[in-house]
């Protein structure tokens, strides 16, 4: 725990000097290869990268292309984990540079299927390629004004960017961009209340006595925005639950209102118990949660029970807490998908489903939900969501194959491959895509390359119809009766393993007959082959 608190302080509370950053020794073990394709130098960012990346347990090996203005993309390292296209556009004198870059990017994104960041300095251009993440220098440029570039140093530094600009850019790219593309995104933000969301103690200062400082107000606005982006926002506080509810009902000056929270845990039990309730309710693992508290003892207590949970020590000065939150690794969304907007409603609806399940027998419960399942074949429009789900699913996943958008595009176009995405809807919510199966047709039958199910869909008694129904649809598409599956055991995919043991043992690593018939007549099934 100390490592993360030290790094929080070093990187985001103090302003680290380049010397301190240069001399930082990474404690992370896992190394990722980052390929820098460039026409100006990136080394002054690499020099100070280790501490920033260590904050998200990443150690990087940077590999460089030659200085290539032509963007030939020869000798690309395809084994690298991501590529940064680091371009100085002022080096080009041609009029239609935008067209040229777009054309070269289209070629690059076909050859290279891992994440790509384009950081183009010098000119604003419009990129029409949704597989490329754009890094924009404008914020740094506006802030630094005439200190943004340093032409005097260019003969030695190999770039027009000033060291100040490079230092700021390093913080942004290394905390916000690289971790979010290399690692699964976080799913939930859990906040303490007293002296974290506002100044004061609810139990002592009472509802009207606690103070919403300007900076706490801004912090709440940041959290509200994160909730809108699809992160579950929850409270874990040592307070009376009624007091907490009353506080949000009365304090209309708070940007955060009860509706913004997916779950509120308020009691006098230990915080780890509260966190336990929250992760059970959300059906997520503790490593996809960040817990924010102003009390280091509470952080330590939670960390002792959930060693993988991420932590932020809230500062008395809420401005600092905002800065940490806005730069916290794996809390950046590059595009907001429909599924992100509906996530919180869906989790709340899950609770309503549980109550229905308890109050009636299972079949009546399912009937009462008006479940509708749609199996879609090769739905290109949903590639971003499918890729996202493949990268963040850890529990119900057969082989941990993390698909990039480019990889999915490639296999969808391949007639020997098929991607089935399954959409679930009931009267309580529209969950969007919750299951994906990918398979390859061979002369012996269908090989199931991957299968993963969102944790939001599990535990509704629908696992069989979702997974086996998707597989059956895949087999029907290839007009095949034989199926072979693979399984890679990981740290947390026991739910997938149990499912395979129950339904698919004979298909494991060998072709065997497969047939699934849906017995739930009351579930509405739709098939979409051409979308």
């Amino acid at each position, binding site marked *: 725990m100390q490592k993360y608190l030290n790094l929080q302080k070093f990187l985001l509370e103090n302003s680290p000097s380049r010397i301190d950053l240069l*001399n930082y020794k990474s404690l992370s073990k896992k190394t990722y290869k980052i390929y820098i394709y460039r026409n100006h130098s990136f*080394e*002054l960012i690499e020099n100070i990268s280790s501490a920033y990346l260590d904050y998200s347990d990443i150690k990087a090996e940077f590999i460089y292309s030659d200085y290539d203005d032509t963007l030939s993309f020869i000798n690309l390292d395809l084994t690298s984990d991501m590529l940064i296209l680091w371009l100085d556009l002022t080096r080009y004198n041609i009029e239609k540079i935008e067209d040229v870059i777009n054309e070269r990017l289209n070629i690059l994104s076909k050859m290279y299927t891992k994440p790509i960041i384009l950081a183009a300095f010098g000119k604003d251009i419009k990129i029409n390629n949704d597989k490329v993440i754009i890094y924009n220098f404008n914020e740094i440029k506006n802030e630094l004004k005439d200190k943004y570039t340093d032409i*005097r*140093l260019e003969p*030695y*530094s190999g770039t027009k960017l000033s060291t100040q600009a490079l230092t700021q850019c390093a913080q942004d790219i290394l905390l916000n961009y690289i971790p979010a593309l290399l690692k699964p995104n976080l799913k939930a933000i859990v906040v303490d209340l007293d002296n974290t969301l506002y100044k004061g103690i609810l139990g002592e200062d009472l509802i009207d006595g606690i103070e919403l400082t300007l900076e706490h107000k801004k912090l709440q606005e940041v959290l509200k925005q994160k909730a809108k982006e699809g992160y579950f926002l929850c409270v874990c506080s040592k307070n009376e639950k009624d007091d907490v509810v009353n506080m949000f009902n009365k304090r209309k000056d708070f940007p955060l209102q009860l509706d913004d929270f997916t779950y509120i845990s308020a009691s006098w039990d230990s915080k780890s118990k509260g966190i336990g309730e929250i992760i059970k309710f959300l059906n997520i693992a503790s490593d996809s949660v960040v817990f924010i508290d102003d009390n280091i003892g509470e952080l330590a207590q939670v960390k002792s029970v959930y060693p993988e949970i991420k932590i932020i020590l809230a500062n008395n000065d809420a401005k600092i807490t905002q800065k940490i939150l806005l730069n916290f690794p794996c809390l950046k969304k590059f595009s907001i998908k429909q599924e992100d907007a509906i996530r919180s409603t869906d989790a709340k609806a899950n609770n309503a489903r549980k109550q229905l399940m308890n109050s009636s027998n299972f079949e009546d419960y399912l009937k009462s939900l008006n479940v509708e399942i749609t199996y879609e074949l090769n739905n290109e429009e949903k590639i971003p969501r499918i890729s996202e789900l493949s990268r963040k699913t850890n529990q119900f996943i057969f082989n941990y194959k993390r698909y990039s958008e480019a990889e999915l595009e490639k296999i969808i176009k391949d007639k020997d491959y098929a991607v089935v995405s399954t959409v679930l809807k009931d009267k309580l919510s529209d969950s969007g895509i919750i299951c994906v199966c990918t398979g390859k047709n061979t002369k012996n039958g269908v090989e199931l390359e991957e299968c993963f199910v969102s944790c939001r869909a599990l535990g509704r008694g629908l696992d069989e119809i979702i997974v086996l129904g998707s597989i059956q649809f895949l087999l029907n598409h290839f007009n095949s009766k034989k199926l072979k599956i693979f399984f890679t055991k990981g740290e947390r995919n026991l739910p997938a393993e149990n499912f395979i043991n129950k339904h698919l043992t004979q298909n494991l690593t060998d072709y065997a007959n497969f047939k699934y018939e849906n017995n739930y007549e009351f579930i509405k099934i739709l098939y979409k082959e051409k979308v």
Partner: protein
Amino acid sequence: MTDKIIEIISKITQISTEELNKNKENEDLWDSFTHIEIIMQLENDYNTRFTEEEIGQMRSINKIKNVIESKTAK
């Protein structure tokens, strides 16, 4: 002054101060990116700004010292 310069360079290059003291004329102790790190730190610590030409000259410890001396003398 030389001691302070050597201390700064030692922090950046991780070369010991003893070793640097023995190599004050050596112009190949660091690469061009380290050169930038050293220049930026010296500008910061001596509250000055070097010209492109001076930056080109400052390849050894003694040459750095000469440039800084000539600037502070002005």
